[in-house]
């Protein structure tokens, strides 16, 4: 069964919203594990975990240090060195927020690494999203992977001109200026030519557009999406209702 891109998007977002609203770390951890399992099944586990690692490691470390050591509202002190106090409440807070963020990140990464961009663009166009949005989205997602290749090509061209890149950070930063200019100039020049072509091919005209590519959208998936949205809405309302009296100061 081929999943419509909006189905995966709705599912990922709803799950993230429900996890955030539920505010319970066992649920967050379970959702995170489920996301990893789904990623493994889709064959993108390595990439998802890699990206998640780069994003979450500094965040989780920062949370542990921040709330583990400095949590003025904590009562149960486990250890103390000067102003730094390890409190149970602090660790608890760090754990809950960290797991909640991890779950959301893993869900959204699962979506972005499994979605097919042309399908997503077609689905958005069918829903009436302005074509400018899908153009910028698709264009950037095509450009980012090509960046590394372009930078490499420029670096070699510079080296052939006598640029010596030492291993030090300062030297690399100085070299970065010399690589940034041709990179940006090249990209801007390409963009200028493309703008003329897009205008000539009718991109800037307002008015109805049709789509050559077509997607299947079986009713089962539409029902699934509606159900997911309802679930998320219910979770949000529940959280707002239960937390509201405590949140607003008397």
């Amino acid at each position: 069964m081929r999943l419509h891109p909006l189905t995966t998007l709705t599912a990922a977002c709803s799950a993230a919203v429900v996890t955030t609203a539920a505010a319970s770390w066992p649920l967050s951890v379970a959702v995170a594990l489920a996301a990893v399992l789904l990623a493994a099944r889709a064959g993108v586990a390595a990439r998802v975990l890699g990206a998640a690692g780069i994003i979450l490691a500094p965040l989780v470390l920062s949370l542990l240090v921040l709330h583990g050591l400095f949590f003025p509202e904590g009562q149960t002190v486990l250890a103390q060195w000067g102003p730094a106090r390890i409190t149970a409440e602090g660790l608890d807070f760090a754990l809950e927020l960290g797991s909640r963020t991890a779950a959301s990140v893993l869900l959204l990464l699962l979506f972005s690494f499994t979605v097919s961009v042309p399908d997503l663009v077609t689905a958005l166009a069918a829903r009436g999203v302005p074509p400018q949005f899908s153009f910028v989205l698709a264009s950037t997602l095509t450009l980012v992977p090509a960046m590394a290749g372009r930078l490499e090509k420029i670096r070699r061209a510079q080296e052939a001109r006598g640029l010596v890149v030492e291993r030090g950070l300062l030297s690399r930063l100085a070299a970065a200026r010399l690589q940034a200019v041709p990179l940006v100039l090249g990209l801007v020049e390409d963009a200028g030519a493309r703008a003329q072509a897009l205008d000539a091919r009718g991109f800037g005209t307002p008015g109805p557009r049709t789509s050559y590519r077509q997607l299947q959208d079986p009713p089962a998936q539409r029902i699934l999406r509606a159900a997911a949205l309802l679930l998320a809405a219910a979770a949000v309302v529940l959280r707002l209702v239960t937390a509201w009296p405590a949140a607003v100061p008397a």
Partner: protein
Amino acid sequence: MSAAAARIDSFSFHGDAGAALRNVQLSVRPGTLTAVLGGSGSGKTTLGKLLAGWLRAGHSGVLHGSLALGAEVLEFRGGSGDPRINPAAWSGRVGYVPQDAGAILSSVRSTVAEELAFGLENRGVARPEMIRQVARIAEQTGLSALLDRDPAQLSGGELRRLAVACAVIVEPQVLVLDEPLASLDAEGAGELRALVDGLLDAGTAVVLLSQAADALARNAGHWIILDGGTAVAEGPPADVEKGAVLRDAGVLAEGPDTGTPVRLPTAAAVAPGSVVPGSVAPAAAVPVLELRGIGFGYAAAKTPTGRPAKGPAGSLPASDLLRGVDLTVLPGEIVAITGTNGTGKSTLLRHFNGLLRPQAGEVLVEGRSIAGIRTGRIAASVGLLFQQPRDQLFERTVLREVGFGLRRLAGSPEAAAGRAQEALAAVGLSDAAQAHPAELASSRQRLLALATVLARRPAVIALDEPTVGLDRHGIERLQHATAAAAARGAGVVLVTHDLAYARTNAHRVLALDGGSLREL
């Protein structure tokens, strides 16, 4: 009645001081081929884009003149009351295929069929009609077998045909082709010529913009020669070809007269009255560049930085690109290396300055091995000119570009400035010293990159396809500059697919065949 006509009294881009085009008239009738010829920077592309609505008055610059499609005439006076062209509607009547074929693609469509349909989608054409149009145009341009391919992975010839198809799918009455044969091999060029013939038969007016009076241009019924933004000659090809106007405008004429042969200095010659330091009889001269038994293959190469993957000593996998390449270049010698695309000519050049490291054999520059020395340091002795100079240029003015890093090499700021001016003069760019490199015409950008190499006075100069994209003036400058460098004692290696140029301008011509070099 003409299908389209343009009368350009003057056109200048926003932000530019001078006019890019002055006093040019163009009128095309259905079913005819018109050729607009001119050297690099003469304004051909600007004229073509103005005719096709890609550059528009008010939006891109200030236009005085008029444009006419059929019976509709639009007058422009350079003010805010001028008509504003609707680019989508205009391109339904006049199509344009840019010099860089990929520039016309939307870049956000994943298959050739969707790319073709992009223009129709924007016009709200119903899906069954779109499918029919795409099939029709694919048939006409020979793309039927490629409809499911990713446009980013097409070959040069296929991409060019896709670009033409994207412009022609809306059935314009006029089609402007900008340098359509550039960087196409013989097969691709033949396919494109057949395509143009088909369009002419169907009644489309075709305007060809070109730097060379090649076979396609000779089919034209009418020629316009542009030089420096104005039309210097017009008329049937036979009339225009008489006289020196083609040569003065920088247009290449294909035929027996390809390039002016330059008398080459022999390797041991010393110009009367000057002494070439360190010159000795050739037999005893230390070669400036020596390649001994170079072996290299991409499949086995480890990392993009070219760190060598040491294979078992003496045995190399059969898939290697270069096998046992030996080359010796003496000071003052010009060597040309030819070969078809894909045989590894560019790969070989990249070994000279260490961008690629060989998996077998060694590279010696001025008698010393370069193994273990960083590319940036080797660049003081080996100057490499890339095919795409844009990646190498990063300063704000031409003069600063040439002067980069010279102070350390030349010793004093005065010497550095002197060398920079000398290099600019050698390539004919002295008048453009304060221009922004990105604003130069492509031919002059190439020459600027050459100047940056010459200014450093390296012992070895390596040029990757130097003639591509150069107009006649550019090629003459290139010939003089390389001959002068060789006379000074540098060794020059050029890689080119243009055998005629190689024979007239090199002491030795080698062919890269099956991974090794042989004399021709």
